[in-house]
């Protein structure tokens, strides 16, 4: 669904290389890459830039698949209906055994990003404790920065979001969290720090009414993942090559510039261990 909801909504997105099962016998079938909401001004332009680059870099037709929620994309990826997807670190660790790490975006020199707690600019809040009793906007229940980080912080205090906050709701997009807080629909929100920083640059009118209450620890950047089923397939390999070589290709550079990323890199999956820890902490509290 390419509405405004998807336009700048949040990264956590994914694109995925085709499911191995299908792609083995059908080399001419297009590569299917999944993407949850993208963040830049025109998602159509961005989708097209991504498709054009991957098509050129892999030498195959590429189809970009978008869905409203992380869960839908994750399901498609895990079930092998996508060759690759740009997913969040949270579903990556949740489905660790069924997914392989394809590439990790490098942002400002590191494969890391933060989660922000945001509130209206005129609020004096300095920590999550000052946000107790708020109407709080989360991005997606499967988002690390847009949900899990905040939930884990509360879990560490023995709290659960629905008790700590007066009311919570999901906007299914990081940009929507910013809109909800900026409009006053929510008094505070949990948002992807990378998306917020990009929004500050491309849509300052939206972010100027917002202040960052606290930035979380650094977490591994939402990865490009592929289904474990397709491990070692030519399609997956082609996609990995394309991603890792993007910063050396003019079209790839344009794509990276649009995404405000430096490059894609190979990283050790252990980078995502803190997210797994958070996940377990939240699950432990029930």
């Amino acid at each position, binding site marked *: 669904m390419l509405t*405004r*909801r998807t336009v700048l909504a949040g990264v956590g997105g994914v694109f995925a290389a085709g499911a191995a099962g299908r792609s083995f016998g059908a080399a001419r079938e297009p590569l299917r890459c999944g993407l949850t909401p993208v963040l830049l001004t025109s998602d159509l332009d961005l989708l097209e830039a991504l498709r054009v680059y991957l098509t050129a870099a892999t030498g195959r037709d590429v189809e970009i698949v978008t869905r409203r929620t992380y869960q839908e994309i994750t399901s498609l990826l895990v079930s092998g209906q996508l060759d690759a997807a740009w997913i969040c670190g949270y579903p990556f660790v949740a489905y660790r055994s069924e997914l392989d790490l394809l590439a990790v975006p490098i942002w400002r020199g590191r494969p890391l990003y933060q989660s922000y707690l945001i509130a209206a600019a005129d609020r004096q809040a300095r920590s999550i404790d000052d946000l107790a009793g708020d*109407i709080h*906007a989360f991005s997606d229940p499967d988002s690390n920065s847009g949900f899990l980080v905040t939930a884990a912080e509360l879990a560490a205090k023995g709290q659960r979001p629905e008790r700590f906050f*007066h*009311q919570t*709701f*999901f*906007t*299914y997009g990081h940009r*929507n969290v910013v*809109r*909800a807080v900026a*409009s*006053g*629909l*929510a008094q505070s929100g949990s948002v992807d720090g990378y998306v917020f920083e990009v929004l500050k640059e491309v849509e300052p009118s939206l972010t100027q009414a917002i202040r960052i209450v606290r930035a979380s620890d650094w977490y591994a950047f939402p990865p490009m993942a592929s289904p474990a089923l397709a491990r070692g397939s030519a399609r997956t390999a082609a996609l990995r090559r394309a991603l890792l070589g993007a910063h050396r290709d003019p079209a790839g550079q344009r794509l990276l510039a649009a995404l405000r990323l430096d490059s894609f890199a190979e990283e050790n999956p252990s980078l995502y261990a803190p997210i797994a820890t958070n996940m377990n902490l939240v699950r432990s509290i029930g």
Partner: protein
Amino acid sequence: MNPARGGWLGRAPITVKAPVVAALLMAIVGVVASERVLSRLVAIQERQINELTSAYLEGLASPLTEPVLRRDPWEIFNTLDQARHLSSLVRPVETVVSDAEGHVLAGSDPRARPIGSRQPAMAAPAGGEGRIAIDEEAGRAFVSRSLAVEGTAIGTLYSEFDISELLAERQDALWTLLATNAGLTLGFMFLGWFAVRRMVRPMKVLSDHLAQSPEGGIRPISPRLFPRLGSEAGHLFRRFNQMAEAVNENAALAARLAEEQRLAGLGRLTSGMAHEINNPLGGLLNAVDTLRRHGDKPMVRTRAVSLIERGLSGIRDVVQAALATYREKDGGRQLSLQDFEDVRILLQPELRRHAQNLDWHIEATSLPSLPGNPIRQTLLNLLLNASAASGEGGRLSFRATTHREGGLCLEVADSGPGLPAAGAALLTGDGASAILGDGKGLGLWMVRRLVDEIGGTIEVGGSDLGGTSIRLELKNVAMERHSNAA
């Protein structure tokens, strides 16, 4: 309109009244037309607002149903936010969605209507479900619509719209309409005024000619004032001139008749006077003869001269009275007791001829200021009529009395058979009574005319003598006024 009852308009001449009425009617038409057009415009606009707002709410209801069921604030907000710019003429200012219990699920302005707050009171009171409430001062319209799934209410959608553009449009239309209608009305008022004034102009000409007629005559309308040939007014003017001619002829005829009557009276008197003069003439001639023959005798001469002197004095009195009465031009001479005496002298021959007896009572030492000639003529006419009515050996009476307030009352009574009703009507009627067919009423008609001229009144009644009594009540008038009027 009855002038006695009307205000200034009622008293105004028709040449002013008719154009004013025409102009007023034009103004009323203008006002009524403006009011009708404007109320129609208002109705059309309200229907338009209704349709636009309904379309807006209907368009929202469907995408909102699912989020309201899920109680998803973001989805509701996002839907409202996207719909914010859909409608142009009626711009939604605020839209709020509440659940079935009246708690806000989300609104387009979450700061004003936070999640969980009570639903707004903005639309509920005036409009009611599906109906529009308009606050013209604020330029706002409020509408609500319930959200239901399979007949079960799940929430309510409230919207506040900025309709100031529509209202401004209406205001524009109002001013344009008012300006146009005012201009047209003024134009029509002027045209109405002009046209009606033109139409009633002949009436003014007629009225002026009637009013300007001096001395009872009617001045015909000059051909110069005639409108074009064949017009209604031209026809009317020609008829007026024919009538004026007839009236003037009648007046001339009446004047001639009056003159003839006067001369006839003179004739009657002259014969009496001749007799009156003739009677002493025999004695006078005898006295002259006596003088001729016995003039040398002082005694005889003295007696004869005295006789001649008395005889000539009597003749002189009669002649002077007649002269005073029939002098053609006598200016504004004031009434004096001598006038009564003259009338008495003039009447004597008639009285003697018919062996009639006259009771003569002058109970006035000083007379009010009244014109002499008309009264003298009037009195003579009345007394001659009374003499004629009383017959041989009849009785007449004359009484002149002055009032304290300065008026004069003259009463002539006779022992005749009584004045016929037609004659009495000539004296006391509305002045429209015609002269009796046989010409006998001419003397009475002249009396009436003379008394009218000097502003007196006439009463006719029965007399103690068995006949008719005619009373003239004359007010003290300035001589000058009478002279001018004459």
